[in-house]
């Protein structure tokens, strides 16, 4: 059967999280010549209908991006025992559900190091989307990375909001970025979905550096985006589509070790990242893979050694 | 070709609104430099005629000549250009503008205001001196008295260099002193060569101010006379026409105890103007007390205060119990509970819900009456419809269809529905305003009979009407109202139309000013 994907609020062209998922699906389509159904959420209350409708219409597997589907999927999955589901960013324990979660703290640690190394002011910023433990996990990993290269650095942390609207509020993102710049920040990491577009734009306008998230966002403002924390949602979707109806249920953790997270280098940021910086970051990546460095996961105990939220 | 001595000449003007012919083949000629009065009953078509002259309405047929030249007046702009100014009964002023701004509005020169305003200030100064029209040009309209607002309207017209000034019932809202001042101004204007058309119901004003007077009746022009050669009596007769004086058969009244006692009743309108200035009256069981007067002299306020619609001060006592005049218990519902029924003057705006069916309207004001309830929850619409059918039969409402919307009945039949509803309640006191306005002769007779029958059952009736005939033939006692006060009480047997007419115009029956 045709696979299907549901994008969360923010839409598949958010240049970030959902777009990564979209790219994975496209890659699958191009490689296999297959077709798939897709749906963008507009509204909290539609999630259940979207899931049901796709399952009802025979799509299999049905992949969805975003923790917010968790509750609804737990309710819907049992109604369609013959359909396989995959959810990104949330664990749903059902016999026909594959849950893909990422070690975002590891990737964030790496770009945090990069930010610490690139900063001239010793102050760097973090702008999260919706204030939830998942996003604090990004911020906490980032702060640890910054502190690892510059223990005296200041990390300014802001969240865009407390509701899903925070994923798609570029105005607020831009204003927060300008606020952080006024506080001295010269590198800002946006982990905020579509809101990040505003952060990156503001950073470019203000002449400071930014760090993208999820997808490779370096191209958006060449010479201004220091790097992007890659969260390979595309791989997760691609894999799920490729497995097709034979999708293996269970929890799948994607970290540095299995290329689930990383940072982006390309011609757009080549001039911003020195060889030494890259060497330092790569070395840290190896140590994380080997377990020599353990980056604290905020979600494990809801605390952060390097930052207070 | 028309005669150039006339500032205005109208030839064969006709205008109808649907089935209503408001003006029928009107001819009138107004010599330049005169004050020309127009009188006529309510609805005679005076305002319609003037609105045609000012370009507000277009005549169905007929010609207009201004200073002898045929002139088309399709809109107000053309009227202004032809030198016509109009002061409407309801002023057309912007309340929160200054006098200056109101005067300049529409007569600005150039896109910027500064020049216009300073010119207007200068011209206004000149006009004020010339015509005794002093108003502060920087005063805001809403702070001005009605009389001053009216002067602003006149100034507006003069500023536009109007040679012809139309005033529609200008004194309806003025105090006598203000009215006197207005007439001095008008005479001044005439002496400067302006032509003035004055519409009024008050014979005294016609007699004192005008040079000629035209009388309208039911859409036609009855005649034009020189004021100096006529008398109030003659005008009243022309105006009212030789209508059949309805003979209402009624036995002599047998007045009983006092049902309603009114003491020092006062009402202010929303602008704070006192419209009822201390009314004292007693109405007895078994009598009809008629209130005569020209519309707008406080009769409506009296009915509304008694009916619980308007807030009032003073004291009213119904069958020995004082009724509150404001606050809780001062509403139509409480008055009905106290035994007061009310046929309002304006049946369409107050007495009926025009979109409701006849049977719904029969419950209007009485929708919580026990006999219209099926149980604690629901109204008994079947009973209501049956009751309506019965009332429609009794009162000969045509067509007798309870489910027809009120708006689809003719005016007379609408009135019958209201009268039926209120009379059949068997109230101790019936307030009736203009019971036969716009009602045909047959229905008038019927409604009159019903009112008399109610009286004969020993009920008290307060009748307000602008129709003198009606007042005279129905009432057992007549009170004449003028300017919010009772001018006096008369016995219909001993008074005559002339005396009442003079009292209605603000003079005592002896011919002196009040």
């Amino acid at each position, binding site marked *: 059967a045709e696979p299907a994907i549901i994008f969360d609020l923010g839409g598949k062209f958010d240049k970030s999280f959902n777009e990564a998922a979209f790219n994975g699906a496209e890659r699958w389509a191009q490689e296999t010549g297959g077709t798939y*159904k897709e*749906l*963008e959420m*507009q*509204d*909290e*209350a*539609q999630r*259940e*209908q979207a899931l*049901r*409708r*796709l399952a*009802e*219409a025979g799509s299999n597997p049905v992949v969805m991006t975003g*923790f*917010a589907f*968790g*509750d609804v999927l737990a*309710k819907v999955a049992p*109604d369609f025992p013959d359909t396989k589901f995959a959810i990104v960013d949330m664990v749903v324990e059902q016999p026909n559900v594959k849950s893909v979660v990422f070690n975002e703290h590891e990737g964030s640690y790496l770009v945090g190091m990069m930010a610490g190394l690139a900063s001239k002011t010793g102050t760097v910023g973090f702008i999260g989307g919706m204030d*939830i*433990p*998942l996003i604090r996990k990004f911020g906490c990993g980032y702060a640890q990375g910054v502190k690892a290269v510059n223990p005296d650095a200041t990390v300014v942390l802001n969240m865009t909001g*407390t*509701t*899903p609207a925070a994923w798609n509020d570029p105005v607020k993102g831009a204003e927060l970025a300008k606020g952080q710049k006024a506080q001295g920040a010269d590198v800002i990491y946006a982990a905020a979905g579509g809101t990040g577009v505003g952060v990156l734009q503001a950073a470019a306008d203000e002449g400071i550096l930014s760090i993208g998230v999820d997808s490779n966002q370096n191209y958006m403002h060449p010479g201004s985006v220091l790097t992007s924390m890659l969260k390979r949602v595309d791989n997760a979707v691609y894999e799920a589509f490729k497995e097709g109806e034979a999708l293996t249920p269970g929890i799948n953790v994607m970290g540095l070790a299995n290329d689930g997270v990383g940072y982006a280098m390309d011609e757009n940021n080549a001039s911003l990242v020195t060889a030494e910086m890259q060497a330092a970051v790569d070395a840290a990546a190896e140590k994380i893979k080997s377990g020599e460095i353990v980056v604290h996961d905020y979600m494990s105990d809801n605390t952060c050694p390097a930052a207070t939220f | 070709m028309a005669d150039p001595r006339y500032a205005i000449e109208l030839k064969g003007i006709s205008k109808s609104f649907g089935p209503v012919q408001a003006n029928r083949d009107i001819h009138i000629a107004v010599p330049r430099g005169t004050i020309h009065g127009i009188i006529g009953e309510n609805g005679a078509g005076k305002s319609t005629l003037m609105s045609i002259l000012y370009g507000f309405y277009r005549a169905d047929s007929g010609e207009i000549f201004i200073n002898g030249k045929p002139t088309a007046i399709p809109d107000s702009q053309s009227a202004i250009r032809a030198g016509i100014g109009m002061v409407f009964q309801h002023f057309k002023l912007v309340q929160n503008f200054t006098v200056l701004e109101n005067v300049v509005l529409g007569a600005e020169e150039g896109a910027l205001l500064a020049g216009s305003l300073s010119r207007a200030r200068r011209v206004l100064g000149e006009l004020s001196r010339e015509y005794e029209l002093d108003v502060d040009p920087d005063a805001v309209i809403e702070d001005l008295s009605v009389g001053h607002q009216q002067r602003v309207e006149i100034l507006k017209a003069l500023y536009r260099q109007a040679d012809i000034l139309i005033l529609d019932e200008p004194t309806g809202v003025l105090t006598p002193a203000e009215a006197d001042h207005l007439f001095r101004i008008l005479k001044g204007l005439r002496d400067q060569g302006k032509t003035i058309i004055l519409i009024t119901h008050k014979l005294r004003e016609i007699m004192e101010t005008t040079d000629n007077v035209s009388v309208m009746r039911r859409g036609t022009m009855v005649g034009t006379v020189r004021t100096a050669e006529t008398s109030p009596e003659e005008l009243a007769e022309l105006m009212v026409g030789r209508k059949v004086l309805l003979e209402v058969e009624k036995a002599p009244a047998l007045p009983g105890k006092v049902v309603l006692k009114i003491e020092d009743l006062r009402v202010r309108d929303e602008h704070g103007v006192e419209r009822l200035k201390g009314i004292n009256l007693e109405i007895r069981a078994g009598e009809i007390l008629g209130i005569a007067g020209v519309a707008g002299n406080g009769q409506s306020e009296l009915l509304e205060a008694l*009916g*619980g*619609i308007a807030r009032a001060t003073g004291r009213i006592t119904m069958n020995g119990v004082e009724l509150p005049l404001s606050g809780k218990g001062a*509403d*139509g*519902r*409480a*008055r*009905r509970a106290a035994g007061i029924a*009310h046929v*309002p003057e304006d049946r369409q*705006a*107050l*007495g*009926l*819900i*025009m*979109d*409701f069916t006849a049977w*719904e309207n029969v*419950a*209007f*004001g009485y*929708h*919580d009456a026990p006999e219209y*309830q099926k149980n604690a*929850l*629901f*109204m008994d*619409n079947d009973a209501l419809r049956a009751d309506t059918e019965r009332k429609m039969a009794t009162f000969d409402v045509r067509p007798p269809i309870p489910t027809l919307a009120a708006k689809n009945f003719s005016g007379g039949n609408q009135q019958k529905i209201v009268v039926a509803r209120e009379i059949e309640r068997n109230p101790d006191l019936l307030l009736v305003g203009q019971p036969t306005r716009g009602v045909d002769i047959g229905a008038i007779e019927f409604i009159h009979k019903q009112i008399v029958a109610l009286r004969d059952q020993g009920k008290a009736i307060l009748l307000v009407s602008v129709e003198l005939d009606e007042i005279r033939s129905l009432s057992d006692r007549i009170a004449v109202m003028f300017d919010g006060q009772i001018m006096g009480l008369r016995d219909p047997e001993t008074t005559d139309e002339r005396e009442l007419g003079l009292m209605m115009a603000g003079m005592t029956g002896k011919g002196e000013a009040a």
Partner: protein
Amino acid sequence: MERLPKWADVALVPLISLLLAAIIAALVILAIGQDPWEALTVMVQGSVMNAYGWGYTLYYASSFMFTGLAVTVAFHASLFNIGGEGQAQLGGLGVALACLFIPWPHWTLALLGAATAAALFGAAWAAIPAYLQARRGSHIVITTIMFNYIAAAVLIFLLVDVLRPDGQMDPATARFPEAAQLPTLNEIPGFNLIFTSNVPANVTLFIALGMAVVVWLLLWRTRLGYAIRAFGKSEAAARYAGISPFAIIMVAMLISGGLAGMMAINNVMGEAERLLQNSASGAGFIGIAVALMGRNHPVGVVLAALLFGFLFQGGAELGLWTKIPIEMRTVVQGLVILFTGALDVMVRMLLTWIFNLFRAGRAVKGAA
């Protein structure tokens, strides 16, 4: 110019308005390079050609019946309640509190309790704008719009900071206990023969239909309804009749808010089974279109709610199976409101003109 016959005014005017809206919508679809006919086919297929589609169409229709009736009751008192959205969200809060904090033994009791709470909360949210209108003359349209925004803020605060269970990331309450969950149509004996899979339409549908009857009885059979309608037609006349404007404004808005609030038993209790942010999903606004389309009569409202249920479900299908974005239904909704609510004079003039053409034609034939 002759008047329109009553049947034309009641039935034809809304139909023509609808037709005009549909024509413009079709043009819009054409303009974005899609096929209107295909769009219609997809909408019909997905919403009324199978039980599954009906399950959704009826679910949406139930919500719209409540909000449509809410607007209707206010309209009859000549009050324009744009606050249905906020009132419905507050109703959702009432439902959530009732379901979460009271241990209901059975869903029937839970339904009764939750419906009461929903109505009370919705009414309370309408009470302030009503009071401000009645006593201080604050325009109810503006205040209800403001209260929609304030409601959204209040709910975000409560969902994020107060009602969200520990460890949950999305701003929503916990799921309601089993005993507070309503049977859906596929769980009701008899209906489960038609609705074989899980559909969101639930017992609330019958409550909505019941409320339509109640509103009809209220408006046309009770003293209160009589007073509301009289006041709505003419405030001056209502005063003459001794009907208190203050009381009518308050009562009509409380009923209206209560009805809007009761919508929450459909979407919050019947479907989501927890309170989400923005739970009303615009149904409060659709209520305006439904009431206008339904000519402010409960029967019309029920029919219009079905129509909008179809539009809503069909619109969702459009988003799924065609390249026409789901926003198409917002456009249609706007067009329907525009033609039925603001351009009704134009539609009527158009119809009158056509009628007169007809009459003239007949007269000519008669003469010949």
